[in-house]
């Protein structure tokens, strides 16, 4: 059949262009627009150049928020990845209890973020919350609204509770895909449990674990709703992560210029990290000869 050259076919791409334009390009360009202008209100804008970017880059407030953000992402990755793997290894591989475990594991993932925040906000209260009350009884006066350490612990535990399941399910899927012959061979080779993990399970889970790390990093790097509900970014700015700080700046103070510059850089950081992960993963696939 001859190839027919018909430029009208380009119209078929139009719907997706319109969709992407409205969902991504126009909002992003609006932000770009804000980031290079300043206003004194009344919709009068004037050119600011890269001024806002310079200001944000040198802002101690943003530096601090970035530091808190990295610390938070680092901590939850350090907890969730090993914990998720451990849970996946302990889960039954088949039968009735495997299904029960899978359903239970999936439950936290199905709960809306603001509800997760509310659950932990209430749990941590000393008057009506189970955890707060219990801690209070054993002599720890729990107060996530006053004590920054308590606030951090609450937010971290909440995130671990909410998202470890995802890591566990991904790791579980990775484990399930290991052919039984590997375990049998390892048994015949008299490999210890640790060696089975180190030389069979971990290498075979590598792919899914990279995805898990990528997802958890990006999600935690953008975390907003849960800490906003529990601590509102406080006490002080102890749990003001990047997005909370950004919203404070954009909507609280209505500093549209710096906030726009801030969010563009935020976006670029996530893009960069995703690109690095993507490259690493495709290289791994190549190394395996797939």
């Amino acid at each position, binding site marked *: 059949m001859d190839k027919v050259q018909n430029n009208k076919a380009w119209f078929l791409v139009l719907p997706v262009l319109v969709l992407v334009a409205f969902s991504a390009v126009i909002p992003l360009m609006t932000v770009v627009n804000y980031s290079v202008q300043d206003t004194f209100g009344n919709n009068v804008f004037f050119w600011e150049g890269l001024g806002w970017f310079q200001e944000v880059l040198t802002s101690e407030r943003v530096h601090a928020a970035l530091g808190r953000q990295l610390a938070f992402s680092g901590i939850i990755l350090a907890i969730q990845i090993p914990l998720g793997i451990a849970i996946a290894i302990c889960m039954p591989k088949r039968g009735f209890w495997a299904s029960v475990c899978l359903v239970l594991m999936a439950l936290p993932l199905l709960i809306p973020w603001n509800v997760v925040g509310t659950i932990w906000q209430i749990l941590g209260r000393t008057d009506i919350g189970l955890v707060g009350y219990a801690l209070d009884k054993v002599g720890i006066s729990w107060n996530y609204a006053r004590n920054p350490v308590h606030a951090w612990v609450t937010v971290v535990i909440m995130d671990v509770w909410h998202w470890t399941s995802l890591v566990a399910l991904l790791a579980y899927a990775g484990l399930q895909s290991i052919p039984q012959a590997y375990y049998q061979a390892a048994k015949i080779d008299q490999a210890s449990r640790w060696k089975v993990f180190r030389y069979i399970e971990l290498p075979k889970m590598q792919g899914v674990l990279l995805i898990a790390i990528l997802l958890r990093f990006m999600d935690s790097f953008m975390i907003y709703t849960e800490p906003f509900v529990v601590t509102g970014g406080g006490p002080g700015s102890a749990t003001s992560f990047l997005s909370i700080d950004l919203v404070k700046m954009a909507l609280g103070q209505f500093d549209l210029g710096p906030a726009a510059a801030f969010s563009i850089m935020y976006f670029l950081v996530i893009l960069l990290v995703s690109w690095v992960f993507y490259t690493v993963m495709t290289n791994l696939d190549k*190394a395996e000869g797939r």
Partner: protein
Amino acid sequence: MAQITLDNLAHSYLPNPKGEEDYALKQLDHVWGDGEAYALLGASGCGKSTLLNIISGLLVPSRGRILFGDRDVTHQDTVERNIAQVFQFPVVYDTMTVGDNLAFPLRNRGMDAAYVAARVQKIAAMIGMEEVLNRKARGLTADAKQKISLGRGMVREDVNAILFDEPLTVIDPHMKWELRTQLKALHNEFGHTMIYVTHDQTEALTFADKVVVMHDGRVVQLGTPEELFDTPEHTFVGYFIGSPGMNLIEAEVAGNLARCAGHAVRLGGTYKALQGRVQIGVRPEFVQLVSGEEGLPVTIKRVEDVGRHQIVRAEFQGRAINAVQLEGTPIPADANRMIFAPERINVYADDWRVAPLQSVATPQREAV
């Protein structure tokens, strides 16, 4: 190394097997000699993997015992039985080097480093991978990975048996030949008891001293390749082994004469009166095409030239019947009959071979 005794062994995957048909592996009683190479041959689902898993200790049989030498190992696991196994698909530790892969079973047993190094060198030389010992196993071809698996199976000297579960499935055909020859050489050199599961008759017949043919959960014959060829004990062995398989023709047998749809066929021995479904079986190699009045009238459908010989595909009373003619043997243009070498005809009642009351001495097998 040890002799393997299968004592009244049977296995069912059901918790409460009722009848015979509930058993994936029907009762069997065998003694497998120390240092011999056995092949378990059969179609998929015939129970050969079940039997292999029972021997390797991955499955505990529902009934019976399994002995290594005098030791009852029925309830011992794979490690206690001290056997090595090579699986259908390559099992290598991707993150280790080829050398570490080979050394793994030895190191886990706390062997002396110098011994491990020497042994790894030896095995590497055997599987032809000395060049890549320091390479990571990840990214090697399936062939190479399976060679590592084979090497790991062979690296320990003190194993009771080495089991192979269709190990050459993923290997290229030309490589198969080479690896099989190597395995055979290794067997001759070290004298391990080897059990090799396969559904490929060529693999089984070239590798093994004794072939165990399985069909429908039962061992239908255990014998040397010659025995399987000359006197298949079951019709399944007849048509499963050989290319093409044995011709089976419904017949009535009386004395030393068989009648196939009214045509008389002389047999090599005399038989007592037989009950059930009676068939005569003759390998295509012992079928001759003639013209005239003698033999079974056949219609020739086509002739396939497969190099060293020709396969004549014909029909007798609507059923396929094949003959193998050596290269250069002319096929008469008016050939319409087939005659069988009488001493090569086996008689089957309900699929099992019936021994003749008296027979002419079995002739030596001629090379075909």
